[in-house]
């Protein structure tokens, strides 16, 4: 099986803390990591490779430092790593990003399955996976928690267990397809010493630019993005509150008084 995994380098937004004195966010020194759900994607790909043979290619669009996550992918056991990097790719929204990835995947050629993490912890959109499937005109199954490959007649299929909230769907699609996985899907393995040695020895990370993937210049980067950011604001969590002290009885009374004053009523009885 030829599997492609799309990965992204992101700031570790789950580790952001608040400065206790100023109440503002500590933004300095937030490390760059591989997007958590992309690790689940790599693990799912490697699991399928262990079962069915074949190769796993990791691909990422980003600036040069994104090579770090591709190197990590090689250390985890992927066979090939490709970085799409070009000034012209910068400023891309999800549509332009998906287009760029699709151009590269068309260049890679033959593939059976694309596995993507459901969403990235910086953009939080969960859009690139489905839009990539759209550009390649292949089936998509999102929120996949379990999967297996089956054959019927001359074709191979993926049978996936997909969770839409409380609704559990068993969906089958003909390969090639794209699936997105979530953190519940599996437990990503840690790199091993052997893995790290192989990852550094094995291969070079291939770097491709706009011309290499024959991407149309008006569809990539900022120019190719229908959406753009008008303004941003860091969230400050602060309220002017009142502190109450005293015996538990007194505190309980104060709480009730507060609720009565603000006319807070429950709505359902359990």
């Amino acid at each position, binding site marked *: 099986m030829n599997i492609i995994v799309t990965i992204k380098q992101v700031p570790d937004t789950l580790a952001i803390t608040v400065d206790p004195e100023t109440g503002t966010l500590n933004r300095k020194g937030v490390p760059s990591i591989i997007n958590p759900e992309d690790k689940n994607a790599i693990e799912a790909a490697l699991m399928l490779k262990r079962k069915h043979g074949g190769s796993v290619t990791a691909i990422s669009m980003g600036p040069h430092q994104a090579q770090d996550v591709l190197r990590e992918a090689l250390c985890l056991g992927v066979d090939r790593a490709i970085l799409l990097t070009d000034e012209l790719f910068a400023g891309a929204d999800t549509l332009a990003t998906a287009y760029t990835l699709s151009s590269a995947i068309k260049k890679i050629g033959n593939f059976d399955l694309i596995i993507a993490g459901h969403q990235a912890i910086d953009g939080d959109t969960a859009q690139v996976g489905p839009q990539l499937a759209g550009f390649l005109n292949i089936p998509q199954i999102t929120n996949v928690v379990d999967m297996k490959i089956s054959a019927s007649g001359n074709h191979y299929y993926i049978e996936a267990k997909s969770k839409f909230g409380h609704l559990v769907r068993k969906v089958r699609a003909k390969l090639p397809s794209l699936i997105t996985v979530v953190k519940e899907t599996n437990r990503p393995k840690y790199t091993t010493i052997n893995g790290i040695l192989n990852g550094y020895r094995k291969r070079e990370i291939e770097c491709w630019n706009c011309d290499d993937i024959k991407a149309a210049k008006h569809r990539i980067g900022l120019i190719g993005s229908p959406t753009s950011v008008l303004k941003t604001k860091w969230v400050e969590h602060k309220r002017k509150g009142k502190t109450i002290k005293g015996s538990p009885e007194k505190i309980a009374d*104060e709480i009730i008084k507060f609720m009565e004053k603000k006319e807070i009523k429950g709505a359902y009885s359990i």
Partner: protein
Amino acid sequence: MKILIDKNKCTGCKKCIPSCPYDAIVMKGKLATIDERCTLCGACLEACPFDAIALSNQMEKIRMDVSSFKDIFVFIENSHGKIERVSLELLSKAFELAKVSKQKVAAVLIGDDVKSLSQELKKYNLNKIIIAEHEFLKNYETLRFTKVFGGIIKKYKPSIVLFGATPLGRDLAPRVANMVQTGLTADCTEFAIDKESGLLLQTRPAFGGNLMATIVCRDHRPQMATVRPGVFNIPTTSSSGKKNSVEHFEVELTQNDAQSEIIEEAIESIEHANLANAKIIVSGGRGMGEKRNFKLLYDLAKALGAEVGSSRAAVDALWIDHEHQIGQTGKTVQPDLYIACGISGAIQHLAGMSNSKYIIAINKDKEAPIHKIADLSIVGDLFDIIPKLIKTINNTKYPITNNC
């Protein structure tokens, strides 16, 4: 700027025709031509194997003719005979935006045998209810729904299209946006119409909820967005007797239009926490100490008519089910009152509850960040305070309204 087909390069192979979401490519004899239906979305530019299709100005950004797109469409997500609550929440926001921008609101209902749902929609002040019915639309399948929705956009050319950011909405909306080559903003929590430009200002959290970004889609239409459930309110029903017009969109689907097949669908029977609708939430964190201490919170919740929530720490410690988790990787809630018990107030938790109207924090650590965002801050032992609170509530018969 225009899209041009080079007569000298065009061989009449017709490969470009299916690439246009608006059916604007027409054969005139042996040559492909682009007619007035073209919206400059750019989807055809790659379709010609002979490179005959190009922009009149290569490097200029694609700008669609936005003036021909009007009105606000809301996708009414439904399953098993029920309308998803978020779709109704979207309607109320759509009405607000429509008023400000002098547009109309239409509901889009896709499925099989959805007439009873359209009856329910008549309660609201909609201009139009567009129904796309077909047996092949009984269960959600990505490509079928995408084709139908794309066709509706093509026919009606709405300026704004809103979806709930449910798992289904987030599966469908990007594929639709891809089909019509327009911009999509995910998980919005606020909208406004810019007075000068008339653009939809789409505000949404990024960086794990720490950054609020306002996004615009300047030159492409429709402006599409998925919207976070639980942020907007259900609209008031209108008994004005106004007749909303129901239009049936003709659906042409075959067996081959599906790209995937549903083998089985089942509702997972797990503990269900009605946090989205709760007016009061009583929430516990690491400070609860152990699983059985959550009984205190369940008792308090019962006394108040509240729901029980938790921080991630309590879920990870297996004290309570993930269903109750509030925060960046859990649910987002907007109750009138959030009582945080033994919760430190990490940023990731705040991302899920900071929009609560009032916050009461009970945490014996006075340095806990939760105290900074509480309206009523209590540095004390929850194991002393909560039992007293329950007693007081039961004694004073604190009013609970059953508001189903």
